[in-house]
């Protein structure tokens, strides 16, 4: 079974190169890793034509099902709908590896919830000088309005999407925690459907752990945090509307959970209760799974220009009559500078050692670290602390002189706003591009649900950089995704 990768047959694997990056499928000696052996055997026998046929089928079904995201800005009023690129080669994670990740993620989310609770109550972690107070009070997403308010079960972050990466040794690191409203879970679910259709036999023989129960788990989580332990709460999903690029996902999740998807204009708050406007009058709402940001939630409390929210929503929430998931103000903990303190939070709140490491991070707000950043700018990745989606980023080695100078000025002008990290040599995974397989960089975003208990469906969304050599996996930057198989054993 130890065929060399550079087989002479005109197969997909033809001239696949394993470089000095960590390759998920192959060990250094170009041997397939044991958990990839079966997939490897299948691929080595497959012609490009046969593979393309399967690929075509998957693409067409995605388009007809409307699994697209919308790109605006061009002249068309309708916007351009693109299929979120889906790669048919699955990423495989052995059982033992997953179980470690799972423990690490639960530990992390538990600490983050305790941290947010603490920040909006006694602020012990600041008083004990574990985290500098100005870091918190200067955070863009710190919400004074949240001070002293209690939330059901003290859970602030109900849904987390943590981005994990592997370096060239194959060790896992947390790249960032997405604690506001992480997206992408619908792709995880749809990718699985597509894989089951196109590689049914292989899938069946592999012993892959199921993920289809995610919507049910999400609903249970949301129901468990209803105000006043209401046993039969009404849950709705609040979307910015169909022009949002993630609308497909909002509709998908609402349908899978069997709950109403609402826009701000469907809601009305009266005497600190929130209602939906229906054909039979107003109906009370208990839990709002919101997919709009804090600023847009309530024009009375936050941005008065927002048309997406519901006036009076925040007061209804403060009165304890409605739960908002994720809670307002969770962004204070996914600020990329605050992120660097998560290992300390874990030690502080849980008295445990972190199971998952952070990527080493330098904060420009600290004088010494800033000097280090500025003198090593061409070797580091610089990130703006509140941006996501691959925006506001500088990749040192690929940057032009002008870009380096621009970021030098930006960092000096507003050090609090920037962090820097060494370039993680992201692991690579065989991925179909232009007629054969290439090693493309990947990451992994598992979705962690936190209500009565913490639960994670095995795996998550594996994102892949579909430009050769690119390290950026975000969908808005030309990334795609893969199905993620966590094995039973």
């Amino acid at each position, binding site marked *: 079974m130890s065929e060399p990768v550079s087989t002479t047959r005109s197969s997909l694997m033809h001239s696949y190169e394993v470089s000095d990056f960590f390759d998920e499928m192959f060990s250094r000696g170009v041997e397939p890793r044991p958990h990839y052996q079966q997939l490897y055997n299948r691929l080595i026998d497959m012609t490009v034509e046969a593979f393309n046929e399967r690929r075509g089928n998957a693409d067409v079904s995605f*388009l*007809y*099902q*409307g699994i697209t995201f919308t790109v605006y800005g061009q002249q068309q009023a*309708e916007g351009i709908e693109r299929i979120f690129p889906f790669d048919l080669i699955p990423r495989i994670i052995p059982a033992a590896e997953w179980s470690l990740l799972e423990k690490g993620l639960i530990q992390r989310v538990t600490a983050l919830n305790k941290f947010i609770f603490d920040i909006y109550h006694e602020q012990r972690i600041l008083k004990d000088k574990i985290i500098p107070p100005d870091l918190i009070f200067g955070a863009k997403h710190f919400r004074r309005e949240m001070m002293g308010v209690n939330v059901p079960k003290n859970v602030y972050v109900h849904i987390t999407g943590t981005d994990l990466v592997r370096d060239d040794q194959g060790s896992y690191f947390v790249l960032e925690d997405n604690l506001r409203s992480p997206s992408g879970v619908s792709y995880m679910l749809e990718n699985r459907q597509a894989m089951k259709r196109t590689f049914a036999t292989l899938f069946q023989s592999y012993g892959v752990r199921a993920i289809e129960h995610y919507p049910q788990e999400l609903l249970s989580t949301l129901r468990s945090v209803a105000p006043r332990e209401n046993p039969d709460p009404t849950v709705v999903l609040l979307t910015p*509307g*169909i022009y949002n690029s993630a*609308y*497909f996902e909002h*509709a*998908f999740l*609402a*349908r899978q959970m069997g709950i*109403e*998807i*609402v*826009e701000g*204009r*469907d809601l*009305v708050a*009266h005497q600190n209760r929130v209602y*939906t*406007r*229906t*054909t*039979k*009058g*107003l109906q*009370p709402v208990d839990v709002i799974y919101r997919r709009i940001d804090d600023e847009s939630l309530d024009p009375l409390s936050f941005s008065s220009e927002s048309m997406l929210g519901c006036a009076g929503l925040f007061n209804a929430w403060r009165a304890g009559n409605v739960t908002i998931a994720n809670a307002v103000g969770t962004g204070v903990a996914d600020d990329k500078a605050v992120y660097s303190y998560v290992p300390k939070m874990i030690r502080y709140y849980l008295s445990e050692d972190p199971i998952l490491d952070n990527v080493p991070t330098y904060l420009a707000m600290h004088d010494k670290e800033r000097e280090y950043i500025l003198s090593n700018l061409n070797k580091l990745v610089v990130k703006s602390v509140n941006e996501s989606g691959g925006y506001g980023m500088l990749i040192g080695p690929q940057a032009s002189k002008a870009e380096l100078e621009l970021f030098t000025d930006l960092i000096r002008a507003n050090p609090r706003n920037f962090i820097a990290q060494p370039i993680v040599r992201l692991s690579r995974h065989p991925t179909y591009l232009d007629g054969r397989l290439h090693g493309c960089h990947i990451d992994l975003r598992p979705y962690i649900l936190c209500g009565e208990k913490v639960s994670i469906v095995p795996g998550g969304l594996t994102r892949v950089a579909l430009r050769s050599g690119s390290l950026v996996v975000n969908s808005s930057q030309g990334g795609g995704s893969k199905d993620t198989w966590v094995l039973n054993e």
Partner: protein
Amino acid sequence: MLSRVADTLYWMSRYVERAEDITRILTVNFHSLLDAKVQDSEDAWRPIIAITGDEPLFTNNFEEYNAKTVSEFLLWHPENPSAVTTCIRLARENARCVREQISSEMWEHVNRLYFLVRDLKREVAARGPYEFFDQIRQGSQAFQGITNETMAHGEAYEFIQLGKHLERADKTVRIIDVKYGAVNVLSDGPEVSLQLIAMLRSCSAFEAFRKQASHLNSTRVAEFLLFSQEFPRAVSYCLQRALRSVNLIFGDVPTQRHLRSPQRALGRICSELGYLEINDVLDQNMHPYLDKLLSGLNELGVEISKTYFNTQVIAPSFQTSQQSQQQ
């Protein structure tokens, strides 16, 4: 169900139906042109625009009525809000807004129809319009069938049915109005029969009519299209179905005094249709009667929108009405 969602479903359905109706009217006219006596002229095409009620908009954009300009206008003119391609785009846009309310099959189907229309080259459609028309008609009919078979027949479904039947009733009334007028100025002869057949075909009613009446004359045709309780495009049938939907949406009411305004408005129209005879209509002349019927349907549309879709800020009496609704 959410007011916004009900509104969207209702319009989704109306747009699908409208696309089909306009396509059928066009198809029938193209067919009629094949008969030697009918010329590709203003006389042949102006009535088609009259049916849609868009004459001013048409004359603003085109100089003369002929096969090319009328089909251009009805199929894809960007300024025509009822152009077939616009209807399909709007149907799909509405479906997209309520993606989670309709079945996946419905969404896939309306999406497919949209891509078909969007990607179609106009020259190709112009060369083989029948094939294109057939695809639209079948697409719309399949959509209604898929809706029937894949969606729970609850409130959402009834709003879809309501939209479909009101749109259809509206179009049938307009077809009778225009075509009946055209027949009446003709002296007896084969021309009359051709016109009557075209009128029936515009409502897919020729075969159904033939099964129950052997004599083809304008009175029988008008009677059939107005009063049939069995033919799914007859005005009476459509409005009875619409009434049924409205009643199901509200659920049982204890007495007639508790009826809401759409039920009253629609019930009145249905009763009148139910007790009229064709001679009563002919006595007061067809056109004024149909005109009154159309404005009745328009007012009904307004009542429906006020009652179910109104998303206005709640009036000061909010608090008391709120309590009663919660009980």
